[in-house]
């Protein structure tokens, strides 16, 4: 199930956050942040780190 096991916190160029199962090829355009953790922990980390949900291009006005 996509709901169990460990996950990576991942982020794209627009600095949007998501999660991805650890050990699986990460889709292009995303990079992991930190080490894998259970899902709830990843989501908690995202809650802390993703403070501005605007895409980066919008924030920077490009």
């Amino acid at each position, binding site marked *: *199930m*996509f709901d169990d*096991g460990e996950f990576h*916190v*991942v982020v*794209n*160029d*627009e600095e*949007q*956050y*998501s*999660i*991805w*199962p650890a*050990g*699986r*090829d*990460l*889709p*292009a*355009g*995303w990079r992991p942040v930190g080490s894998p953790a259970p*899902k709830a922990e*990843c*989501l*908690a980390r*995202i*809650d802390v*780190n*993703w*403070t501005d*949900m*605007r*895409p980066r*291009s*919008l924030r920077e006005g490009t």
Partner: protein
Amino acid sequence: MPRIEPRPTNPFPLLHDPAERRFPLSAGQERLWWLRQLDSSHDQYHITGGWRFPAGLDLPALTAALAGLTRRHDILRTGFVLRPDGTTAQEVAGEVEVPVVRAGREWRAAVERAASEPFDLSRPPLLRVVVAELEDGHGLFTALHHIVTDRWSMDVLARDLFELYDAASAGRAPSLPALPVQYGDYARWQRRLLTDDLLRPGLAHWERTLAGYERLEPPTDRPRTGRDDATGASLVVELPEEDTAAMTAVAWRARASPGVVVTAALVAALSAFSGQDDVVIGAIISDRPRPELQDLIGFFVNTVVLRVDVSGRGTTFRELVTRTRDAWLAADAHQDVPFERIVGAVRAGSEERRNPIFDVVVNHAGDRTALAEAPGAPEWWYPELPVTARFDLSLTTQTAGGRLRATFVYRPALFDGTTIAALAERYVRLLARGAAEPDRPLRELDLAGRPAAAPVAADPAPRATVVELVEAQAVRRPRETAVTGTAGELAGEKLSYGELNRLANRLARHLVARGVGRGRVVAVCLEQTTDRFAVLLAIAKCGAAYFPIDPGFPPGRLRFMLSDAGAALTIVSPSLAHRVPADAAPLLVLGDPDLAGYDTGNPPPAARPGDLAYLISTSGSTGAPKSVAVPHSALSRLVAGAPRYLDIGPGTTFLQAGPLTFDVSVLEWTPLAHGGRVVVTGTGALLEDLEAVVRDHGVTTLKLVSPQLDLLAERDLRKLSGLRQLVVGGDVVSPRSFLAARELLPGCRVTASYGPTECTVLATVFDGGFRDGRVPIGHPIPYTRLYLLDRDLRPVQDGMRGEIYLAGDGLARGYHGRPGLTAQAFLPDPYGPPGSRMYRTGDVGRRLPGGAVDFLGRADRQVKIRGYRIETSEVEHALLRHGATSAVVVRAELDTGPALVAYVVTDGSGDVAALRDRLRATLPAYMIPDHLVRIPRVPLTRNNKVDRASLPPVAPPRPGAAAPPGEGSGTAAPPGNGLEANVAEAWSRVLGRPLAAGEDFFDHGGHSLLVPRATAAVRRLLGREVPLRLMTRHRTPAAYAAALLTESLPGLDAGLLLERRTWHSRTLGGDRRVDLFVPDGEAEVTRTLVVLDGSDFVDVMRLPAIVARLAGDRRVPEAAAIFLSPADWSSRRRELLDDAYPDLLADELLPVLRDRLGDRWRPGRAVAVGASLGAVAAVRAALRRPDGFEGAIALSGPLSEHRLGPAASAPARLFLYASREEADIMLDDGLDLVEAVKRTGEELAARGHVVRCEYGDGGHTYAAWESVLPEAVSWALREDRARDVR
């Protein structure tokens, strides 16, 4: 390797008893016998075999050989019978003749008939033979019932038959191995092992193994119906020699048989096919545990359950082979537990049309018996025959010529050939790749070699914002109407594009002056008036996002929403201002600020594509509300693609009937961006005014959600004529309403749509044709991608169940201020452009041939009850097909356990019971809701979604309730009857545990092999035939008793009318059921029978039939009958013996009949009828209330135990009866029941009453009473009495 206990050996000696002719059935035979009882019209359990005789057949030698064969194998002279006690037996006949059909050249029909014609299992031989003339020589075809043979036995049969034939034609003695035992000996030997004590550890094993198992539910191409269809089709695939060798090597290394490896591959394929990790299938194994059994013909096949856990992201093929091997070993070790006992132990129910526990079986016939290949054996002949499918899907594998041959047999009623071909292909791929690379994770094996997901053509949506688009329309068509409807504070009933834009510009400038700008949120709480678009457009022009709030919400919740969204301002219609708290965000009341001073020109563009256009709060079924934040780019994507599927250009008028808080309102931007018109007006919560609005405003394009369409379909859709397009949203669209719209609105395009708020209102649309009574959700709209993915986020094959993911330009930014929640729902999209995201909808669907997507349900609305995974939407679909206007199905936790509850809305005439009957015809029983509750209307949330929390709770079932409670639109179910209680008691005895009237036999340890015994108990009770099948359809004592009664209805003479009512007694309190039988017509009624205890002592329908017949024969005058049931069966005894009971009968019950009959009622007294304790009450009524009763019929009453009446009373006519067998019933006063009747009769006669005592046979049973009733009734009711006085 885990230690697996070996199979225990049978400690009893296996001996031949030449004297014995009657044996029990083996466990397997019993199961086959049972399956046959369920459906005698056809039988898929035939085993056939044919052989070629190129040199021709010597018919006399064949006859001799067949005679020799039946002499040699007792089983071929065996018939199967049901004994009166409900047990089965096989009886060996002395001699039988095998029917031989000489079919000549036209043999095909004869062969087909021989193969398909049902056998009478009680009449041996269960073997028939056809001799055919082939192109070269003869063909010999045999068909046997499986209960006497199996595949292996067919090789034995061939060998024996040909040796006997050879010997006969050569005139020599046959040379065959001696048979030390016969099948009956085996069956008895096997049964000795099957005692409860010996089975206990095995049963415990199966209970452990199957604890919490999930039924495998591969997605079928057609819904499962209640119909039985054994028609099969087959598909053969082969594994190349090289792969077969590799597969065998993997087996060897895993210390497993090749059968294990082929099973592991099937498990993997099924897991991928169904999306389930917990795979439970059946396996067929040949079981001849002793060498003495090798040369016997007989049924030596066992079916075991294999449960294999496929979970684990990295599970390799080798690991799966190991798990499968362990499952096999454990199953093998515990195979002595009969399958039915396992079914009973795990309460898997007995699904009449579905195999318990599993629907898929594997059968590896890898090790063929050596007999088949013996030198000199005749060549096999396989005439083509229709395929029968005993299971939904079965896989038989066999190695021949170094290649594995896999035959899939399936039911075309459920699966398309292409689906099975895809499964078979997947199976072979998994097997080949697994054998080649056993240490690769299964998921990779499954994916490898499949065409990669088609690369996405990422054609970006145009990015012009709605602000730019509407401003452009204002330039292009300044005077054309943009908005019509109810006048608001700022605008009249019509607003042109120019006016709309100017108004919005002024307001925007005012907003900017109040600090509204990019990145800000402005809450809106607006009436459905024309100016609302000026407000929304103004907010957008500032670069801010609008956030509709619902004035109906409590202030606390609104306050939370406003501060959660960080609203800078709330714009509110004056009439709603008092509803909105002003402390969370300042209020701007429309009409308050004077906008006249502001410039009407366009303000400088502010909103960028990435800026938020709006927030929509979704209540969510659980937890706090969350707001979906949608950027302009997503709104632009909706608006840009809309003309391709929505009729919204210039000259069109669009209406959607939802509030602004509902995301469908966002669609109103599409006509405005393209020069069409929008109607904004309140249409009432139930759309009372919709038809008028459509007519008055010339609406061309109407968007509804599915419950709204149902509402309109209930009225008259023709009132919507003039529409050019009707779009119906919602995942389950009623096909009835959808088709009605198509039919009643000629020239109107009817479109279904689907889409979560997270994908900006719409994701797919559908306007094609559909089949199987389901409206698909269709194809993705422009700039939108839809994926159907498995749990590993990999695309499923077409036709397979997958979770719906959406991607493309329509995705929301996320949940406002909820980063974690957003990250969880918006995932990296492996199939889109780099860095893009996809939204996990939580919906489940599959792709139909042709590409449209079919919505299968919510991933979280799949419920599990008694091991079955039930898609509630599947049941909803079925209810809609069968006439419900709307339906919501939920799983409810009741006191009696989890239950499936359907809430239905039906039009006036809709009868819930009839709906249930129709459901039965199309849905398997486990999907039939336990409760059908009629509700006037499906409650909706403010956003027009089904409000599941507001559905009424189901009333807990009353013990002993006859009908499933909750049915019959709210009136209390009539009190139950004694037949129910008796059935419950009989079944409880068979189960060995108490069963309540409302409890399902099969959910409480019952299984099909107990059915004959349970039915036999009922037969003894009623003294008549009852089909075994009745129990599989009516599984609770209550339902069964009800079925027994209605079943005997046809026998009721049409001359009597039945009226059933619930009646409340003043004297004793409580509601009672009263069944009134009144002669049809206008004739006077001079005689009445009052039957106490309702149906407790006789089939309630039988006595009226007897009375009607006697009246028809003119043996008695026209009579009415009243059946009275006690208020509560548990206190029946107290009630019948209550001193007030005779008064209740005379003063309360008889008037019920008098009222009913009116003028037809002739002053006349009644005869009370009762059995057992009811007999006491009946005699008391006659003695104590001679004003109401002229006599009594008292059957098997313990009369001497009770004080019957006053010493002196008016003479009564009393018919007293006892059965001679009742002499063994001892009463408290020391008399037996027969003596009690005799003694009481003498005493009453001495007191001057007219008494007739009769004695019969049959014991204390319904049957005995029924047989005496005609005489009793005609004596009691006859007009000319003088002759009878004794």
